[in-house]
């Protein structure tokens, strides 16, 4: 298992896949293997914060996770899968706002939230404000996360926050905005609680909100 953690965190993709196959073949429970990936993600996240790893490593990590999940599928039996939704730490409603179709940042956030124990509902890209609000009612998230790379995204983000206010829900939910161009001006304009220009800091902030 230590070898697997090392292979994943060192970006040795081929070795990671071989080791995963080997461990599963030897009868190792998929949950245990998944835990090794989670441990590796912790190492990768830490290196990202330290400025040793960057976006490419996060993307590679996401890809390795995806491959591993595929490899694990045939071994999954009842009760051996990941924790059921009830055990999740918190609910996160995620999406790229209306008018914007950028998805890479949002997808990284989704992957990191998921591995950090959040139940994530990803609404995709170019999501109208009304859709966010409808899904808010249905899903009752702890946090709403809106992504957008373009400056036009701020108006769309603001619409969602205004909608939450009208519903009387604004003080029941935390709102974070993310994207390459967001900053304090945008955060204030939108009426969000926090802003993040990278996936790791956004996830860290979300973890703090739910008391982790």
């Amino acid at each position, binding site marked *: 298992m230590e070898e697997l953690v090392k292979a994943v965190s060192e*970006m040795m*993709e081929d070795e990671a896949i071989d080791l995963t196959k080997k461990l599963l073949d030897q009868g190792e429970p998929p949950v245990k293997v998944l835990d090794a990936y989670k441990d590796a993600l912790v190492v990768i996240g830490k290196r990202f914060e330290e400025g*040793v*790893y*960057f*976006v*490419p490593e996060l*993307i*590679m990590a996401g*890809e390795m996770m995806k491959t591993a999940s595929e490899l694990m599928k045939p071994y999954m039996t009842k009760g051996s899968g990941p924790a059921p939704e009830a055990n999740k730490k918190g609910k996160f409603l995620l999406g790229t706002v209306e*008018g*914007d*179709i950028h998805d*890479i940042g949002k997808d990284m956030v989704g992957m990191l939230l998921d591995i950090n124990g959040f139940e994530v509902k990803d609404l995709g890209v170019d999501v109208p404000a009304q859709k966010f609000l409808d899904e808010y009612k249905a899903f009752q998230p702890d946090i709403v996360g809106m992504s957008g790379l*373009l*400056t*036009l995204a*701020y*108006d769309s983000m603001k619409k969602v926050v205004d909608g939450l206010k009208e519903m009387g829900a604004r003080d029941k939910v935390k709102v974070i905005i993310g994207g*390459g*161009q*967001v*900053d304090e*001006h*945008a955060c*204030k*304009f939108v009426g969000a609680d926090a802003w993040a220009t*990278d996936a790791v800091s956004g996830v860290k902030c979300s973890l703090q909100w739910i008391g982790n």
Partner: protein
Amino acid sequence: MGDAAQLLAEREKRFNDAVALNKPDRVPIITMWDFFPARFKGLSVKSVMYDHQLMSDTWAECFDHFQPDMGENPYAMRGFAKVLETLDTVQLKWAGHGLDDYSSYQFVENELMKADEYDHFLFDPSDFMIRRYWPRANKALAALEGLPPINQIIPYYWGLYSGVFLLSPEMEASRAAMIETAKASAELLKWAGAFGKRMAEMGLPAPSGGYAQVPFDTLGDVFRGTKGIMMDMFRRPDKVMAACEKLLPIMIDSAVASAKRTGVMRVFIPLHKGLDGFMSDQQFHKFYWPHMKELLNALIREGITPWVLVEGACNTRLEAFRDVPPGKVLYHFEATDIFRAKEMMKDRCCIRGNVPATLLSVGAPEDVKAYCKKLIDVCGEGGGYIMDASTTLSDAKVENVQAMYDFTKEYGVYK
């Protein structure tokens, strides 16, 4: 006319002085307009994208109002709706075509070159582009995917089979689309030429006469996609390097040809995928900077001023960016710490920017003025600085743009 010629010369000199690290008469102010002129006139983006005359009048009126030190020719990158529509391109969404009538267009990233197609690209990029890239990027050219290899058409008897394909029923629609695209392109260029003249008559120099990219950006933006190229750095680094080397002379040759054709010896180079956070220092010095440096030097050797738009933040790349001949390169910063950049670049490169787009779209005129004051005080010191927003004026408020122009022209005068 005499006034326009004089104004043109004054503005060229103001810009050239700044680039050469000398002190102009005042801080030049130039902005990248995007579709701001349409909003300024209360028009939709869609209306100007499809109406060449309206675009010309709208842009001219906007420039006449703000009197920037350089104009901008909107046709090639803004007036192209007909061309895009005829090609049925998948790489952009634009007003009335996937986006609402008031939105600027957005680039849609696709993996148009698969990971296992590097060898085809490396063996013969033109053949790859015609038979794989074009048909995937443009639905109207889908039939080209069935074309036999272009490089097998040598003397006529070898080309017989390939030539006949052009007559095939499936090619008919693509052939017609190519002719229609050519006609729309000719029309677009006619208007671009006319607008170039119109700007000159208004005393407005053109900001660039050509476009180039760092090869890694082209490979990532249009062929492999961001995710694809980031993974390629780990999975097939040698292929990435080889493809970048293949693209480098194409970038240089097309930019030089375009600058010479237009007579505007400035080339616009936006940076996309070498930014802080997008790759490690080690990856930057392997996959990005060597080709970027060669591109800059090749353009400088041709007497061209590279105008590098440093998108996102590049604080960790400034040391590398300094490594160019002094007074020849213009770096335009978006979110990089421009004050630190001034410190590092003042003896080397002119810098430009960076009134934050967020400030211009959601701030107040007083905030804009305060930021401009700091820029002029710190970055403007001793010359070598051009006032601009951090990026295009897409969603900027008119009163904020006005404040930026008025304040710079008044406060930015060198004594």
